[in-house]
C-alpha cells in the first residue's frame, strides 16, 4: 500500500524545501493556472465538488466554509493554522519542515479563491526550526514572483505574513488564534459571529489547517472527481494519519479515508510490538474517546467515527497495548487540558483542575472507591457548558477508559472496610 501518495510524495527522497526541486515536480504550476486562467468562484466550486473537509480537527467542508464569506466585504483574510498541538498529532510539523512550498502554494491558491490580498500563517511557537525553514521558503517564493505585487505577472497582489506563536495549545482554536494574531491573549471568542463574517481585525476571514490547504494544488491538478472518487461519499480523499503509542513503526501515513483501522495499525504502523496484546486506540487526538477490539474493522472516516461516539479529529491515532496503565494515561491527558485551559469558562477551568487533582490522588494511592463515580460525574458536568470545544474535550477519553477499564481504576483506590 502506498502510504505517501499525494502530500507526502517525495518526502525523504528529494529536497522539497528547495523551490527549484519543488518546481521541477510541477510545483507552483497550479497557482499560475489559477491566477492566470481561473475565476476565484471556479476554484471554490472545484473544491466544493471535491468534498475536501478540514483536516485541522472539525472536518468542516472547505468549499462551504469559503462560501460563508459575504460577497463584498473587503478586505478579507486567509489564515493558515499550523499551531499543531493536539496530543498525538505530528503531521503539520512534518509538512512545515519537509514540504513548505506545498503549504505556500495552497495558501496562495486559497487566498486567491476567496479574493484575499493578505494571507497569514500562524506557526506554533515551539516549531522554531519549522519557522526558519518556512521563512526561507517564503523568501524563495517571493523572489520567484509568487508573493507580493502582481503575482505570476498578473495584476493580483498577494502578501503573505508569518506569525509565530509563543506556547499555548488553545491558540489552535481558530478564534483564539485570531486573537493571538491580533496581539492579544489567546482566548477564544464567542461564536457567532464566525470568522467568515467577523474574523481578523473584524473582517471576513477563513482559517484553514495547513494539511487542508496543501491539498488544494493536487485537487486543481487532478480534478475534483479524482479526490471525490477516493474514500466514501462524505469522507473524500486522502488524510495523513499520525500513528504513535505502542506500535512497531510509529509515523505519518497518508491513506484514503475509510481505510480500516486494523489496516492502519497492522499494515501501516507494523502492528503491535511482539508478544503484546491490543487494548485500545484513541482515533482522533487527545480530545477523542477510545475505540476497542470490536471497532478494529471500522473504516476510518468522519461518519464511522462519529457514529461510534468518537471522532476522526486531526487524524492522530494513539495505540495502547496490554502494558498500558490507563489511570496514568487519563492523568496525562486531563493534566494537559487543565494546563491548557484559557480560564474563561468556570467548568473548563475548575473542572479540569478538580479532575487532575482527583486523578493525582488516585495514582498516589489516596483515592477512595467513590472517587471513580466522582470522576464520571465531574467530567460529565463539565461537558456542554463551555465557550469553546476544549472544555468538552476533557471527558471523552477519560469516560471511555474509566468505563472500559474500571478494574484498573479500582485497583488503585481504597475500599472502605465495614467496622
Amino acid at each position, binding site marked *: 500500500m502506498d502510504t505517501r501518495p499525494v502530500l507526502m510524495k517525495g518526502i525523504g527522497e528529494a529536497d522539497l524545501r528547495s523551490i527549484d526541486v519543488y518546481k521541477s515536480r510541477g510545483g507552483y504550476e497550479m497557482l499560475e493556472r489559477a491566477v492566470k486562467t481561473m475565476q476565484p468562484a471556479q476554484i471554490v466550486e472545484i473544491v466544493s465538488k471535491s468534498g475536501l473537509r478540514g483536516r485541522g480537527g472539525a472536518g468542516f467542508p472547505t468549499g462551504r466554509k469559503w462560501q460563508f464569506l459575504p460577497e463584498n466585504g473587503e478586505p478579507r483574510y486567509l489564515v493558515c493554522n499550523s499551531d499543531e498541538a*493536539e*496530543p498525538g498529532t*505530528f503531521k503539520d510539523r512534518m509538512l512545515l519542515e519537509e514540504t513548505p512550498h506545498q503549504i505556500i502554494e495552497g495558501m496562495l491558491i486559497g487566498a486567491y479563491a476567496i479574493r484575499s490580498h493578505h494571507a497569514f500563517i500562524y506557526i506554533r511557537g515551539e516549531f522554531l526550526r519549522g519557522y526558519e525553514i518556512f521563512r526561507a521558503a517564503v523568501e524563495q517564493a517571493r523572489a520567484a514572483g509568487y508573493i507580493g505585487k502582481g503575482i505570476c505577472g498578473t495584476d493580483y497582489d498577494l502578501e503573505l505574513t508569518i506569525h509565530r*506563536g509563543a506556547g499555548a495549545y488553545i491558540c489552535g482554536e481558530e478564534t483564539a488564534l485570531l486573537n493571538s494574531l491580533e496581539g492579544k491573549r489567546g482566548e477564544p471568542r464567542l461564536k457567532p459571529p464566525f470568522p467568515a463574517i467577523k474574523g481578523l481585525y473584524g473582517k471576513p476571514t477563513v482559517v484553514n489547517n495547513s494539511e487542508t490547504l496543501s491539498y488544494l494544488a493536487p485537487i486543481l491538478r487532478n480534478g475534483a472527481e479524482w479526490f471525490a472518487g477516493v474514500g466514501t461519499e462524505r469522507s473524500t480523499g486522502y488524510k495523513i494519519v499520525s500513528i504513535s503509542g505502542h506500535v512497531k513503526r*510509529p509515523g505519518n501515513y497518508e491513506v484514503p479515508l475509510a481505510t480500516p483501522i486494523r489496516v492502519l495499525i497492522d499494515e501501516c504502523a507494523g502492528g503491535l510490538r511482539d508478544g503484546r496484546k491490543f487494548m485500545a486506540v484513541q482515533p482522533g487526538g487527545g480530545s477523542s474517546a477510545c475505540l476497542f477490539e470490536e471497532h478494529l474493522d471500522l473504516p476510518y472516516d468522519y461518519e464511522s467515527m462519529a457514529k461510534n461516539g468518537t471522532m476522526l479529529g486531526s487524524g492522530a491515532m494513539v495505540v495502547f497495548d496490554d502494558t498500558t496503565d490507563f489511570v496514568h494515561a487519563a492523568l*496525562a491527558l486531563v493534566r*494537559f487540558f487543565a494546563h491548557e485551559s484559557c480560564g474563561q469558562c468556570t467548568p473548563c477551568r475548575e473542572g479540569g483542575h478538580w479532575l487532575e487533582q482527583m486523578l493525582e490522588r488516585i495514582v498516589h494511592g489516596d483515592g477512595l472507591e467513590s472517587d471513580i463515580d466522582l470522576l464520571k460525574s465531574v467530567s460529565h458536568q463539565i461537558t456542554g457548558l463551555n465557550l469553546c470545544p476544549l472544555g468538552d474535550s476533557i471527558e471523552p477519553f477519560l469516560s471511555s477508559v474509566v468505563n472500559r477499564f474500571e478494574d484498573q481504576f479500582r485497583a488503585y483506590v481504597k475500599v472502605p472496610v465495614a467496622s
Partner: protein
Amino acid sequence: MTATSFEELAAALKPEADAIVAQYEDSRSALLPLIHRFQDAQGYVSADAMRTTAEWLGLSLAVVESTVSFYTLFFRRPVGRYMLQVCRNLSCTMNGAGAIMERFRERLGVGHLETTEDGLFSYEEVECLAACDRAPCMQVNLEFVYDLTPQAVDDMVAAIRGGTYPVKPLAQTEAPARSWHVSKDAVPRVPGGRDVPDPNDPGGIGDRTGVIMLDRVVRDLSPDRTRERLVKDGRELLERGH
C-alpha cells in the same frame, strides 16, 4: 542589563520593529513578534522590554504584561542558558518519559520549572511537542531531541556541562533565580508586598499601621464617626506623619 545597554538594544531593534509593525494592518499584532525579539536578545522578557513594546505600539504596560503572561514560551524572569523541555504527554509517557524525567531531575538536582544554581540549566515538563513517532522526545532551546534514553540524558547533561553540546546557548543578561515561573518564585510570600523582608515592616502582612491609625481616628478623633469626618481626620493624621 544596564540602562544604557538596554537603550542600545532597543535602538538597534527599532528598524526591525518598524518593519514588523508594517506587516500588519493593526500595529498591536506586532506584540508577540517584538517580545520574541527582545527575549532572543536578553534571554527573558524584561520589564524594560515590556515597557518599550508598550511604548512602540501605543499600548498600556498592563495590556502588554497581561498578554505576555498568557504564553508559556515567554519567560518573565531570567532562565538558564539551556532550556530543557521534556514531553510529559500521552505517547511519550507510554514510551518511557517517566524514566527520562526522573533522570533529569536526579542529574540536575532541580524539579519542574526550576533552574540550576549555576544558571546553566532550566528544566520544564511540557505538553505534546508533535514528535510522538520519536517518543520520548524533548526540546533543548527549541531544538528537537528524539528517542531519549536515560543514557542519552546523561550524555546530554555532560556535554552541556563540558561545553561540547551542539545547540547554541540562550542569551543570559542576568543571573536566574531558582525558578522563572512567577507563581513559583514568590516564596516566602509576604502578602502586601514582595519586597518586604520582614512582615512587620511597613507594607508587610504584620504591618498594622493602617489598622492602628484607623482605630485612633475612630476612637479618639472622630466621635461622630461620619464618613466625611473619618476621611478628614485620617488625612490630617497622615499629613502630620503618623
